[in-house]
């Protein structure tokens, strides 16, 4: 009987178990499904959140690098091996100085599984006096047959913007002609034209004689413009050189100085950028040729005494971008003294001429595209000067670099592959990482400044070793990635009074 009872009872218990199991499994499957959905949703939400955080971290990196540029630093913030810590993530910024003078910042932000890389291109050097266009601190004289107009190098060549059927060809406007003194424009029989503004100094006048066209304002300027002096880099100079050939004298990208360099007739001087060149005197004899090639990087030519390009000499600029060439003359002469900058060469000069204490004469064959600023400026009969609006745009009073491009770029491969905690991915300890403001790469600085007692002082050393609290005003600075005495290097940024202008 017991056996029979067990057989019946066991059979009933078994069926209940099966039913229970079915119910439990059903509920479990439902619960597991819901859990999986919730989990997947949470993962996606977290991934979206992480990506957004990484994006904003990368933007914070760009902002930090941009701030560094504005302070004269390189724009590098941290490195992939030692990034800057920020919130729950990290970032680092790599900067690259482009041949065009722009700086590209590439910022990578990482947070959780999120990754983002952004790039920004900025123009770090902000000018102030190129916005003056054609300017003289003393009187400015325009001889008969001269033409001054404006164009915008961003929009293409001068020829594409000018009315080439006119005689002489010219644009509709854009000239910026100014002076702290008077402006005299002689038209003569052939006539002179300024397609734009011609504004004398406060209380001064514009006088014309003969056939003269001035399409813009002739109102006096509201205040005097102070032209800061040229600060010439201290470079050991080679002895005076007379180049007589054979073959051209080629100066490769470098920082180099000559006490005097004279190019004999039928010889060539080739200057390749990037380069910083310092001369006491630079002379081109008749039929000599100066070829400037700034396509590889900006060329800055400093003259400490005089420039003489003889009539019949040639100048040839291989780039039509005026921002890539500057000629700066530091010599101080009386306004009544003879011209110590004589530009009688034939050719087109794309760049900025800055001679705030010198007297400059530009011949008719020396056609300037860019800007020309001098103590006394004379544009000879038939001279042509075309003011570049791009240089003027860079002359805004803002001390900040000008941003020109922003974009989202592809993640570096080694960063993109492992979507785990960024500190694990990079193998770094968050506790040892610097904060963003402490992660800027140091630069070598050559400073001239006035301290709190108004005494002019200089500093040459790493940026981390300088106490900015002792500065009441900054007259100039140059920054380098290395000590320029030990390593021949081109400045990262120059904000000397001169370069401020350029």
């Amino acid at each position, binding site marked *: 009987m017991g056996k029979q009872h067990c057989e019946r009872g066991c059979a009933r218990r078994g069926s209940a178990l099966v039913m229970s199991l079915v119910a439990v499994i059903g509920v479990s499957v*439902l619960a597991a*499904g819901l859990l999986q959905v919730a989990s997947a949703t949470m993962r996606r939400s977290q991934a*979206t959140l992480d990506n*957004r955080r990484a994006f904003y971290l990368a933007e914070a990196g760009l902002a930090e690098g941009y701030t560094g540029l504005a302070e004269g630093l390189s724009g590098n913030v941290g490195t992939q091996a030692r990034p800057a810590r920020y919130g729950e993530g990290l970032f680092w910024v790599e900067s690259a100085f*482009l041949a*065009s003078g*722009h700086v*590209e910042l590439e910022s990578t932000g990482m947070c959780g599984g999120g990754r983002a890389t952004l790039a920004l291109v900025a123009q770090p050097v902000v000018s102030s006096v190129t916005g003056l266009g054609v300017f003289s601190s003393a009187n400015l004289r325009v001889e008969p047959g001269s033409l001054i107009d404006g164009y915008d190098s961003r929009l293409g060549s001068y020829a594409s913007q000018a009315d080439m059927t006119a005689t002489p060809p010219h644009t509709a406007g854009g000239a910026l002609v100014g002076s702290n003194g008077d402006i005299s424009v002689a038209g003569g029989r052939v006539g002179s034209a300024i397609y734009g503004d011609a504004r004398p100094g406060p209380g001064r006048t514009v006088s014309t004689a003969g056939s003269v066209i001035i399409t813009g304002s002739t109102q006096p300027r509201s205040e005097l413009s102070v032209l800061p002096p040229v600060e010439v880099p201290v470079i050991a100079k080679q002895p005076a050189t007379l180049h007589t050939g054979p073959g051209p004298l080629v100066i490769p990208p470098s920082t180099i100085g000559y006490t005097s360099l004279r190019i004999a007739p039928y010889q060539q001087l080739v200057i390749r950028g990037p380069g910083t060149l310092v001369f006491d005197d630079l002379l081109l004899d008749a039929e000599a040729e100066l070829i400037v090639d700034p396509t590889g990087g900006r060329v800055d030519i400093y003259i400490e005494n005089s420039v003489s390009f003889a009539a019949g000499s040639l100048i040839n600029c291989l780039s039509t971008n005026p921002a890539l060439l500057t000629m700066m003359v530091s010599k101080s002469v009386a306004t009544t003294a003879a011209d110590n900058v004589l530009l009688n060469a034939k050719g087109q000069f794309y760049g900025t001429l800055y001679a705030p204490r010198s007297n400059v004469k530009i011949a008719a064959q020396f056609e300037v595209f860019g800007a020309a600023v001098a103590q006394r400026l004379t544009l000879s009969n038939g001279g042509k000067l075309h003011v570049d609006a791009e240089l003027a745009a860079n002359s805004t009073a803002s001390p900040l670099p000008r941003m020109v*491009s*922003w974009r989202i770029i592809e993640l570096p491969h080694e960063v993109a592959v492992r979507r785990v905690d960024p500190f694990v991915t990079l193998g770094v300890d968050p506790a040892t990482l610097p904060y963003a403001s402490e992660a800027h790469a140091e630069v070598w600085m050559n400073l001239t400044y006035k301290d709190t007692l108004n005494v002019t002082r200089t500093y040459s050393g790493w940026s981390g070793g300088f106490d900015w609290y002792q500065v009441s005003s900054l007259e100039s600075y140059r920054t380098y990635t290395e000590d320029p005495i030990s390593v021949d290097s081109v400045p990262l940024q120059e904000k000397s009074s001169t370069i401020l202008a350029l």
Partner: protein
Amino acid sequence: MRPAAAPGRAGLSALEVVVGVALLAAVVAKVILVSSAASNVSSEDLANIVVEDQARLTLDRIAYSIMGSDRASLIPDAETPAFSARIRYRLSLGVQNGVVVWDDPELIALSEDDRKLRWFEDPGGAAERAVVWCDAVRELLEGEELNGVDDNGNGLIDESGLTFEIDGNTVTVTLTLERPTRGGRTVVRTVSTTVTCRQFEP
């Protein structure tokens, strides 16, 4: 010797069978009802999640595209209260030889025919390419009716399910998605964001 149990005792009586079957049917019915309800809830939750997720993802894509553009390149460029269901823009590829290089124009547009949101590369050009970013965009923004009146009180009249509004250097993007669930309901989600064009006119 005990008499052997009657053979009928080994099975179930008719009454037991009827009661058992009734109980089983009740339990099964309940399980089915619960499962069905759970499934419906799950389906609706899932639909909510999917629509929300898709809306956010699409909005992020649009936002990242527009923030890389420059304000001057936006077409149409009429400022708010004008609005549009499409926006054409261009992105920078960086700087080469001192000049900003621009990519081919791109277009984000809502098709009125199939309510699909498409991204176009080089629209109208020889190399035009289109990618569907979202296929569940509502004809009109949530709360809006096609009646010439601002039903949802956002200052816009009869605006479509994808709306771009430009204000200075910023673009506000509003997107309403709509997707039916298995339970016959319709899930509607509206998301919005405002982005600033990071690009600077060279």
